[in-house]
């Protein structure tokens, strides 16, 4: 007889934080106390609060234990489960008071979220199809088979669901186009090539709730008349691939995949295709080439994949998060879906909060939530009392939302007006220590690296822009560099073949628009206000503070520091390579970095 369940978060971040050894200790402790038959351990998908991991939740109470280690995990069994005493030391401490939260319902990180896409992540065992079914899993498929293809597509269209991969194209229109297209066979593809650095929502859905994607793909196959589906997952996500494989096998065993699904006479099966590390493969036409086993190079649209996709046949392609939205829409209806979010962007969006924010992790909020709510109410603000400078959305294809727009509701259209894109939902928070010129250069380096080389504006143009950015951060910029960057950026945006090139200049153009002073400081004053650009830094000794301990002189790799013992030292600027060792080693704050 099971009296308690221990949910252990087995999301990517918690595994990294030592989830496996915590689990081993818990198993051992259960056996030691002789209650291994009364307590069930379930490893779930990502619970979202990556910063608090590893996380253990005790049910039925829902007690939320955070930052559990193999050393402190024992009392969860010996105290909580055996003696019924909550282990208060492992509870979450509220940031504004001395009290501790007992359950997720008392933590603002969770209470402000609306979990639809992540409905099962962190709640069920992703390897168990029974648990998925118990949470209304595959009911959407049942409904779909009952109402037929036209009604399915009509429901999706009425819901107003827009593609969560970045561009926000209406999903229903895509489905209709694929259904109406002539040609056979047709294919259903899931884009799980989450390449934007700083985005991990698709990974969490695939790892934490793989059946939701499988169910949606079967529905899509039935709606457009396809018999084969492909899930394209990037090779960097081995755990997602592993769990997806298990889920596919289970789904076949239960008759949700394969021949004559649920007795409807409809056949459908899904294959996994693994990426091989090319960012451009997130672009749909490039991804289709990669599934065909070729170099992942994009092609001009039209023809759109719905007309001529995989092997030239009509193909429906959506991303992971878009698919995860589909089953609940079929169960609850279009109206339900539109009940949260904005009029033009209904539903929720999953964001990956990362960078300089207190609570990093995965959050799902209604469209139209403000950046302030995301960063400060849910994210807990900026660590170390630093000032918020901006949030980068859309990865290398996006731009910055600055502090002035903290109260603007975020949806597909509002972010576009600011010159950025929603992207897949990566939200990198930047603080006063981040140099905007340096961050923009970083993204450009990424696109230069990842440009497939097929079209000239992207291949050559991004490289030229990068060289100008490098000049600026090296302190060799000239006043007309900004004009050149803007012109080049516009040309690349307008003439590149695919989304990668068309959006590659965004980070630079966006930072020029919102942080012109920082560019000017680099070019005219040869200074980096955030002290991030190495070549624009100088290190010097504040002679009043220097006690002559010689620590810096001994540490300096190029012997640029001289001075006598117990006397103030001096750094020779011509020799200094700006490695910062002296700054790190000085215990008297006597090294000035400016």
């Amino acid at each position, binding site marked *: 007889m099971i009296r308690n369940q221990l949910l252990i978060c087995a999301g*990517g971040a918690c595994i*990294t934080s030592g989830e496996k050894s915590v689990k081993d200790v818990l198993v051992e402790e259960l056996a030691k106390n002789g209650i291994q038959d009364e307590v069930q351990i379930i490893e779930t998908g990502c619970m979202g609060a990556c910063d608090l991991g590893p996380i253990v939740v005790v049910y039925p109470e829902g007690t939320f234990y955070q930052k559990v280690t193999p050393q402190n995990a024992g009392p969860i069994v010996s105290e909580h489960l055996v003696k019924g005493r909550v282990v208060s030391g492992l509870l979450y401490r509220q940031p504004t008071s001395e009290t501790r939260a007992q359950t997720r319902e008392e933590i603002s990180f969770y209470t402000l979220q609306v979990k639809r896409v992540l409905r099962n992540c962190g709640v069920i065992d992703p390897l168990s199809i029974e648990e998925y079914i118990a949470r209304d899993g595959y009911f959407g498929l049942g409904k779909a088979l009952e109402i037929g293809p036209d009604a399915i597509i009509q429901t999706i269209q009425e819901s107003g669901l827009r593609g969560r991969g970045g561009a926000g194209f209406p999903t229903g229109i895509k489905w209709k186009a694929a259904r109406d297209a002539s040609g056979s066979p047709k294919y259903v593809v899931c884009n799980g090539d989450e390449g934007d650095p700083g985005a991990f929502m698709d990974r969490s859905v695939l790892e934490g709730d793989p059946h939701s994607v499988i169910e949606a793909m079967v529905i899509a196959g039935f709606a457009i008349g396809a018999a084969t589906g492909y899930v394209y997952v990037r090779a960097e996500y081995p755990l997602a691939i592993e769990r997806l494989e298990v889920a596919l096998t289970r789904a076949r065993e239960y008759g949700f995949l394969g021949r004559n699904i649920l007795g409807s006479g409809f056949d459908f099966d899904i294959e996994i295709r*693994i990426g*091989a590390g090319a960012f451009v493969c997130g672009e749909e036409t490039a991804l289709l080439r990669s599934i065909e086993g*070729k170099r992942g190079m994009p092609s001009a649209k039209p023809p759109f994949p719905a007309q001529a996709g995989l092997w030239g046949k009509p193909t429906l392609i959506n991303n992971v998060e878009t698919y995860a939205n589909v089953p609940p829409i079929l169960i609850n209806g279009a109206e339900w879906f539109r009940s949260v979010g904005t009029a033009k962007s209904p539903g929720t969006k999953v964001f990956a909060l990362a960078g300089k924010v207190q609570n*990093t992790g995965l959050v799902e909020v209604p469209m139209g939530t403000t950046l302030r709510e995301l960063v400060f109410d849910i994210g807990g603000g900026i660590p170390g009392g630093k000032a918020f400078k901006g949030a980068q959305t859309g990865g290398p294809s996006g731009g910055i939302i600055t502090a002035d727009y903290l109260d603007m509701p975020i949806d597909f259209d509002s972010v576009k007006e600011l010159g950025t894109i929603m992207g897949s939902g*990566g939200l990198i928070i930047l603080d006063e220590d981040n140099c905007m010129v340096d*961050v923009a250069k970083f993204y450009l380096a990424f696109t230069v690296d990842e440009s497939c080389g097929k079209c000239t504006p992207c291949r050559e143009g991004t490289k030229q822009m990068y060289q100008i950015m490098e000049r600026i951060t090296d302190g060799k910029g000239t006043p007309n560099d900004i004009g050149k960057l803007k012109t080049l950026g516009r040309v690349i945006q307008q003439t590149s073949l695919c989304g990668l090139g068309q959006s590659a200049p965004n980070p630079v153009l966006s930072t020029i628009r919102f942080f012109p002073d920082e560019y000017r400081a680099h070019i005219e004053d040869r200074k980096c206000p955030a002290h991030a650009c190495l070549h624009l830094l100088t290190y010097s000794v504040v002679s009043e503070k220097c006690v002559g301990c010689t620590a810096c002189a001994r540490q300096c790799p190029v012997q640029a520091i001289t001075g006598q013992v117990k006397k103030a030292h001096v750094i020779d600027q011509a020799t200094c390579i700006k490695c910062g060792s002296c700054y790190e080693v000085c215990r008297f704050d006597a090294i000035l970095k400016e």
Partner: protein
Amino acid sequence: MQINLEERLKENPVLRKQFDELDAYIDEKAGQQGSLINVMHRAQEIFGYLPDEVLAYVSTRLQVPRSTVYGVVTFYHFFSRTPKGRHTISVCLGTACYVRGSNSVYDKVTKSLGIKAGETSPDGRYTLDLVRCVGACGLAPVVVIDKDTYGRMTPDKVVTLLNKYV
């Protein structure tokens, strides 16, 4: 090339076993459209890298021109044409890691191992790679060694960590 390989297979049972393993996988995927990338993944798992003779072999077995095989292998970052060290260290330079200082972690690794990204140490112990986001952004900066992921890295911590991988 083919004849050469046949002879070498006779003399080298280890190589024979590796090619048998690859053969079994190709047979399993027979008839699957566009299986080249999956086959190359498996080949790299078996051989550790993708030398010319493996490319030639796959080309013949899958009836795909060698130029196509070569084109695919060189297009994707994941495929390596040179042997890897016993341990592969991947320092993440994705955005979340970058803004939290992963470049200083990377610099420390290059300094202490004396190799740059894409290189293997002379003793064959380490290969250093740069990756763009492994999706563990919540724990940035992140370093992946072989199949283990380590979060909240610092230049000091990474050196201690490296020493554990002999």
